[in-house]
């Protein structure tokens, strides 16, 4: 591969600037490659930085190192096989991606999901949000030199994964849910694990906050680093915690509620200056709010079916396929793709770990999408990175990148 070193076009662009500066005052600029594989970038991104000593004068990102052409693959797969592609976008919070995709389909097919399934989805999505933010914030602490906090909370991500395991058998790429609801109810062990998590998590997380949030070194590294104004953040297409840190209370769960979010009480934390410390604080508070939502959902969890009555889209139980004629027919039709779907275009978005995760689906009535576009929040806001690090120090760039929570899988799709 030719671009392990800086791509030629970027080298040429910077060569002129280096020459010019050398002629002006004799000082020497240098080009630094941060990435593609670098322990501080948490994923495969390359940043070509033009440096004057420790200071960054200009930067350019090259992305696409794990591009897997999901949108192309999706055009060749039946709807239910696309779910496994969505897992692999933001792999820190795969259930949100999964349910976002099912909800898009449910919108297209006009399927009403029963309350119990909606509440369970909310619980799982909020657990996913907790694990996503937990990783982002604890890794941010690691990047500023505080390793202990990370170790305190890491086991709680593990416990969230164990709850996923109880539902779907997988930990990271969950493939949860089906059209119309969930593939199975959370087991008794699952509920026990969930209750135990709810009991233990606040203690550990408070400890983490006590250790990191007001830590002198951490604050020195984060306060007033990588700030962005609300106007600029909106123009750059920021959504999610990064936008809320800049002071805009835009949250899809409030703006376009889905999956019964309107039934729950929760607050939207906002920051002020949009700097790294605000992003950290907003994520921390969102973890508490997610915790609050899970508590309410658990308390109010209704009984009832866990999937809608849509036999033409929801696979029948396997034992029925062998004994009942109807189940056999539906099973065959679903697997062989003989069920027509409505024609039309639908856009659905959910509040992902990083912001507005959108699915734009163009259906021509066949079993595969005519076009499926993923609106990946990371991809859209990562272009602001150059602006945010320009003029700063190299060590600040690392912290800013970490606090933006750029996930390579989502960035490159």
């Amino acid at each position, binding site marked *: 591969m030719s671009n392990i070193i800086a791509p030629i076009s970027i080298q040429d662009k910077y060569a002129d600037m280096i020459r010019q500066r050398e002629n002006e005052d004799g000082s020497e600029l240098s080009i630094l490659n941060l990435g593609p594989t670098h322990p501080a970038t948490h994923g495969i991104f390359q940043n070509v930085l033009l440096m004057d000593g420790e200071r960054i004068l200009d930067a350019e990102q090259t992305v696409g190192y794990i591009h897997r052409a999901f949108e192309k*693959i999706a055009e060749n797969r039946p709807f239910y096989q696309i779910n496994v592609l969505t897992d692999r976008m933001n792999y820190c919070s795969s259930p949100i991606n999964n349910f976002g995709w099912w909800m898009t389909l449910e919108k297209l097919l006009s399927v009403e999901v029963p309350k119990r399934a909606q509440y369970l989805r909310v619980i799982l999505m909020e657990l996913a949000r907790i694990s996503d933010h937990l990783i982002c914030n604890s890794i941010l602490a690691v990047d500023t030199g505080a390793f202990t906090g990370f170790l305190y909370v890491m086991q709680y991500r593990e416990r969230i994964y164990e709850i996923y395991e109880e539902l779907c058998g997988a930990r990271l790429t969950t493939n949860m849910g089906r059209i119309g609801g969930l593939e199975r109810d959370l087991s008794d062990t699952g509920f026990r694990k969930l209750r135990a998590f709810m009991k233990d998590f606040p203690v550990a997380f408070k400890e983490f906050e006590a250790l990191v949030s007001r830590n002198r070194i951490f604050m020195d590294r984060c306060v007033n680093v990588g700030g962005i104004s609300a106007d600029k953040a909106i123009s750059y297409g920021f959504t999610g915690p990064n936008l809320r840190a800049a002071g805009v209370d835009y949250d899809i769960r409030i703006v376009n509620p889905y999956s019964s979010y309107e039934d729950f009480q929760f607050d939207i934390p906002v920051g002020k200056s949009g700097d790294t410390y605000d992003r950290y604080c907003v994520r921390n508070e969102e973890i508490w709010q997610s915790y609050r939502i899970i508590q309410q959902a658990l308390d109010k969890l209704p009984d009832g079916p866990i999937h809608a009555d849509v036999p033409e889209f929801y696979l029948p139980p396997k034992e029925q396929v062998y004994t009942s004629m109807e189940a056999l027919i539906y099973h065959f039709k679903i697997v062989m793709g003989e069920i027509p779907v409505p024609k039309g275009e639908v856009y659905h978005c959910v509040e992902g770990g990083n912001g507005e995760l959108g699915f734009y689906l163009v259906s021509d009535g066949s079993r595969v999408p005519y076009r499926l*576009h993923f609106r990946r929040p990371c991809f859209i806001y990562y272009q602001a990175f150059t602006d945010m690090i320009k003029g700063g120090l190299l060590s600040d760039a690392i912290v800013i990148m970490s606090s933006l929570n750029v996930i390579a899988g989502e960035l490159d799709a």
Partner: protein
Amino acid sequence: MTNEQIQEQLLAKFGDNISAFKDEFGMMSFEVSRDFNTEALHFLRDELGFNFLTDVCGIHYPDMETERQFAVVYHLHNWVENVRIRFKSFLNGENPEIETASKLYLSANWQERETYDFYGIVFTGHPDLKRILNMDEMVSFPLRKEFPLEDGSRTDKDDRYFGRIPVNANSN
């Protein structure tokens, strides 16, 4: 602000250049002729309050007539009134070209690069129009319908099955 009001104002401003209004799954969508996409975006942003460009992407319709073989799709969101709309601009199949929106919304920059990368749609006036997710040496546009997906039944790892050679990459 209702969809009817938006439609009225747009028709009063652009007349025949805006057409095909319809409501799909709660979102209004319409078509804007190719030459007026930035003017429409400008009007929508400054007069009608659509402050947020949610998404830009392309679609390929190889079976349509030449004038309508590509479409660029814009999703916009008005945060004050909480209204979402979508509009498409159809482009010529041989020479897909449209004006860039990156001067109005900074977020359009990479999204248009992605659209160029996938479909070869040229955004005139774009500050840095080059491939973003695929390698620079690639010469074809992978999300066009004629571009084949990897053959699922292949038994080896020949580059031809990935569509890389002989026509897909510059030899130097």
